[in-house]
């Protein structure tokens, strides 16, 4: 319990906020609209709405205050250090927000005649060009809306390529045990079955085990690189050769491309397709869970099957191809219209700001920061693997053995110290995982302070302060929430 209570329930800047449905006055509105003129024709078809929707009526000041208060109950990158492994919470440049709001880019309809949107098509084409150059791949499908959507897009291209070759019987996809859950879920949506492959002691794919699983029914391999343990798959070229030798394609989950951009070309690794999370590698905002974008680069073998639409250079300028053309056999369409254009603008602004030199410096600094974190915490926590990591450092919970403190408790205690927790219990291949990704946009000072905090917490845990950890967080707007209650008796909406 908090030691102090107030009459209002507020505590200084921590202000309790009702639901919008519990406030407002009927007849108020935050928007002034003109009076609709007389309607002389009956075009309602007898389907006029009966009864009210139940939405509350609020004025603008009430609305602005409501959302401002809600925002103050959130932690963002703008608030502080956000070492959430595999999520790449790097600074989101505000220039990207500014240019994305230019009316000439924001106030455009996707179905305007193409000659009136040449600048928008240029944005798409320029971003596609950068993505192809940075990966060395000949083609890119721009429309997937997020990473998992890009995964599915890549696998659909693989499935279609096999079908076109008369090898539709290839239905087995190899996926490492450490893979993100979207990998098997995406494979299942393409009619593939998933065959797990084990990792070696050093956290990399077991090449011999992989080879033993190859066969004429194998469609491909899904491999995250750098992998979910934050390690580069050092035998990746041999892995690619093995899967190609068996007639399969190599899908790379590019969630961690941010670690190697400008330092490695994906094409040189033998990869056939890879999605790129623009919100991770190219700093577009996560927005509390989207929107993302997952453009998927494709090798020459898969390029003909890219989904519509895509931009080509035509006689009179850029052309948006929305239907199958000669020579192309698109596997279909993955979403409405032309992709996450608003996200493209932001990513391209970031890329233009960073340039080839800046992008390479960013991946170098991201890896340097993670290795520094690993080196400075290695004696106090328990790193899961030896040797350098890439953009994130993985620890397991051996350092908490017999303290009574769990990984979850440790993470919640970090919240009281003013930090967002690291990723917990992922990847599943190590016990009680703590995955920390500092990103390149943190200063040495910020990382040093975080290291000091983590070390002090580890010492407190080892000194027997388990009760303190169990009670954390104590200073947040809400303390630990009852997830069992939420799931047993779901309350998913407000009701009068």
């Amino acid at each position, binding site marked *: 319990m908090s030691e102090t209570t107030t009459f209002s329930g507020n505590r200084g800047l921590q202000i309790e906020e009702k639901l919008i449905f519990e406030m407002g006055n009927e007849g108020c509105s935050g928007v002034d609209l003109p009076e609709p003129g007389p309607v002389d024709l009956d075009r309602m078809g007898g389907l006029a709405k009966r009864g009210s929707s139940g939405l509350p009526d609020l004025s603008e000041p009430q609305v602005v205050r409501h959302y401002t208060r809600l925002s103050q109950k959130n932690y963002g990158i703008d608030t502080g250090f956000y070492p959430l492994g595999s999520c790449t919470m790097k600074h989101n440049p505000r220039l990207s927000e500014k240019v994305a709001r230019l009316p000439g880019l924001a106030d455009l309809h996707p179905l305007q005649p193409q000659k009136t949107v040449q600048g928008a098509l240029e944005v798409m084409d320029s971003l596609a060009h950068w993505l192809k150059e940075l990966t060395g791949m000949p083609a890119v499908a721009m429309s997937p809306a997020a990473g998992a959507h890009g995964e599915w897009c890549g696998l659909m291209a693989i499935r279609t390529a096999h079908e076109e070759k008369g090898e539709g019987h290839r239905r087995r996809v190899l996926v490492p045990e450490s893979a993100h859950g979207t990998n098997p879920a995406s494979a299942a949506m393409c009619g593939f079955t998933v065959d797990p492959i084990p990792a070696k002691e050093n956290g990399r794919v077991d090449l011999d085990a992989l080879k033993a699983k190859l066969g004429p029914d194998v469609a491909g391999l899904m491999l995250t690189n750098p992998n979910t343990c934050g390690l580069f798959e050092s035998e990746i070229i041999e892995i690619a050769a093995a899967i190609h030798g068996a007639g399969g394609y190599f899908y790379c989950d590019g969630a961690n491309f941010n670690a190697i951009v400008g330092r490695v070309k994906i094409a040189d690794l033998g990869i056939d397709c890879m999605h790129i999370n623009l919100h991770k590698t190219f700093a577009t905002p996560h927005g509390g869970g989207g929107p993302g974008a997952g453009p998927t680069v494709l090798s020459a073998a898969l390029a003909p099957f890219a989904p519509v639409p895509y931009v080509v250079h035509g006689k009179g300028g850029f052309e948006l191809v929305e239907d199958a053309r000669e020579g192309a056999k698109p596997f279909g369409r993955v979403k409405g219209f032309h992709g996450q254009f608003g996200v493209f603008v932001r990513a391209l602004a970031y890329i233009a700001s960073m340039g080839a030199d800046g992008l390479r410096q960013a991946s170098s600094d991201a890896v340097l920061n993670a290795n520094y974190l690993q080196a400075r915490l290695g004696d106090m926590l328990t790193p899961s693997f030896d040797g350098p990591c890439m953009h994130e450092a993985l620890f397991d919970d051996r350092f908490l053995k017999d303290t009574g403190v769990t990984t979850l408790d440790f993470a919640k205690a970090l919240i009281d110290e003013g930090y967002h927790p690291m990723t917990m219990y992922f990847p599943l291949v190590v016990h009680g995982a703590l995955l920390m990704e500092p990103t390149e946009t943190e200063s040495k000072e910020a990382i040093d302070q975080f290291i000091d905090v983590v070390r002090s917490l580890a010492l407190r845990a080892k000194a027997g302060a388990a009760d303190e950890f169990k009670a954390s967080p104590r200073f947040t707007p809400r303390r630990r929430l009852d*997830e*069992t209650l939420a*799931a*047993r008796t779901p309350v998913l909406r407000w009701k009068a």
Partner: protein
Amino acid sequence: MGDKRFTKDHEWISVEGDMGTVGISDYAQHALGDVVFVEVPDAGRAIAKGAEAAVVESVKAASEVYSPVSGTVVKGNQAIVDQPGLVNEAAEAGAWFFTVKLSDPSELTDLMDRAAYDAYLKTLE
């Protein structure tokens, strides 16, 4: 009810005559944590040994319950559907999942008795 026999997937069955009662083991409920949702099969459904027969979910995990034997479902346990927490309280007693009329009682010989299951659990540690 007769003595329980166990599967490697942590289901148990106790049989009287040709009627079996199926549930999940105490080890399984403990591994899942707080159970928040249960789905049991409808009466009359034919199930094969090893086939998915029921579902049990906690906040962070979901698991299928496989039938230890072949047969026809007689009844699902509505009590655990209404109160999933019972599975945590009495996994090997009142919180059974369904009853089944066995079509091939000889399948029981493939299952472990209590001692064998306990020994099997030791190997999982």
